[in-house]
């Protein structure tokens, strides 16, 4: 009898939890206990890592330092190139009269726990509603997209990884813009592209970036690289497998992305206004006869373009 009552009670709870939002605040408050428990559960690992770090020898540290310096140099080089590319991008976008790219705001966060169920790919991070984390917010690491926030608690939140079987993300082939949907397989090293035509132009080594079409993930972040394309004449679609670029099961530190809450129209209007203001300012400066040294900023481009027109 008591079993029946409790079973019905749990069934009702499950249905309410799955279908309605009534229980969400309660859940989020109960979530307060989550962080200390996971912290305690992780304690042996944390202690072990701390100990190995303390005891690692000087030579190891020196080697690591060397490696990091080399990496830093590489990054610097890429950053220099990036600056030039960004300028070029801005100029091309001006030519196209499209809205400027807005850099997203990010918040660094740390992994504090992994879902004990090995068949779901979810992790726990140390930022919650108190830090402004929102439901559905994208999470990425240094190499690419990792997943999205599916549950927010006061000081922690749960993130569903790209490779979970219930997760899909709209992507684009970086080389030619081919659109597809990448679905998780339950294997942390593999995504599968669904419904890709057998004749589609996609091959091994292609980089897949997020397309932003689902309105959930920002566009242009790397998601995966294609590892295998199988053409089976018995199948209606090609089988395309990809490896996530993010270190889904190794990353300790992640970034939460805050995308612009404004609508695309608003954004376009505002950036157009900003551009007009900049133009006006540049024109005034030009009339005042101030000669700026050729900086590769848009206003400098305007300046250098204006005299040429007057010469003609």
């Amino acid at each position, binding site marked *: 009898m*008591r*079993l029946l009552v*409790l*079973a019905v*009670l*749990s*069934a*009702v*709870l*499950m249905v*309410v*939890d*799955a279908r309605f939002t009534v*229980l969400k605040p309660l*859940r989020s408050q*109960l*979530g307060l*206990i*989550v962080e200390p*428990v*996971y912290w*305690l*559960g*992780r304690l*042996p*690992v944390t202690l072990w890592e701390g100990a190995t770090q303390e005891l690692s020898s000087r030579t190891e540290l020196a080697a690591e330092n060397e490696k990091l310096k080399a990496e830093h140099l590489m990054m610097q080089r890429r950053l220099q190139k990036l600056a030039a590319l960004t300028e070029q991008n801005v100029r091309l976008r001006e030519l196209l009269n499209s809205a400027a790219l807005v850099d997203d705001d990010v918040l660094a966060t740390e992994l504090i*726990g*992994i*879902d*004990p*169920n*090995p*068949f*779901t790919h*979810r992790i726990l991070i140390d930022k919650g509603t108190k830090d402004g984390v929102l439901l559905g917010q994208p999470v990425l690491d240094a190499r690419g997209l990792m997943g999205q926030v599916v*549950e927010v608690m006061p000081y922690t939140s*749960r993130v569903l990884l790209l490779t*979970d*079987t*219930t997760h899909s993300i709209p992507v684009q082939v970086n080389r030619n813009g081919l659109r597809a949907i990448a679905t998780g397989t*339950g294997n942390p090293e593999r995504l599968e592209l669904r419904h890709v035509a057998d004749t589609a132009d996609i091959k091994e080594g292609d980089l897949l970036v997020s397309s932003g079409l689902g309105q959930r993930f920002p566009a242009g972040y790397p998601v995966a690289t294609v590892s295998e394309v199988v053409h089976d004449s018995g199948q209606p679609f090609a089988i395309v497998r990809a490896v996530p670029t993010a270190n889904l*099961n190794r990353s300790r530190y992640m970034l939460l992305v805050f995308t612009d809450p404004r609508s695309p129209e608003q954004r376009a209007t505002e950036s157009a206004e900003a551009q007009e203001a900049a133009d006006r300012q540049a024109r005034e400066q030009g009339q005042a006869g101030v000669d700026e040294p050729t900086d590769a900023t848009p206003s400098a481009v305007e300046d250098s373009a204006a005299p040429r027109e007057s010469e003609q």
Partner: protein
Amino acid sequence: MITVRARNVWVIWLSMALALLLSVATLPKFMEIGRPLWLALFLTYWVLALPHRVGMATAWSIGLLADVLNGSLLGQNALILTLITFLVLSLHQRLRMFPMWQQSMVLMVVFGLAQLVQLWLNALTGSRPPTLAFVLPALVSALLWPWICMILRGVHQRLGVN
């Protein structure tokens, strides 16, 4: 039922808290798939030892806590632990007479059933393991049972929990 004066009941709660902690503790990747059902094991011991103290209501509330910790549907683990407690309660007079290995066998079946229900509930929410691996935790738990039982019995008798 004769009312027995409660003594050192905090031990039960402490052990259940330990089980909750163990159920989310970080394990190496290859062991994750066979994670023992700590909550079910600890609960089973207390139900067998003190059926008048630990019952289905206790199991249900602990299951609810486990749900919050695991981020599963509220009520999922609660239902499963209640089910296990029900089965153990209805078998407890017989189970207590069995030798240890036989208890392990019976518990393997009980835990296996619970894992099956867990699988169904997971399938309802969309995540489904592709293999038979979901019964592995039941097997591991059954193998662990004699040790858990001995340790908890030691604590139980030393502290005179009632």
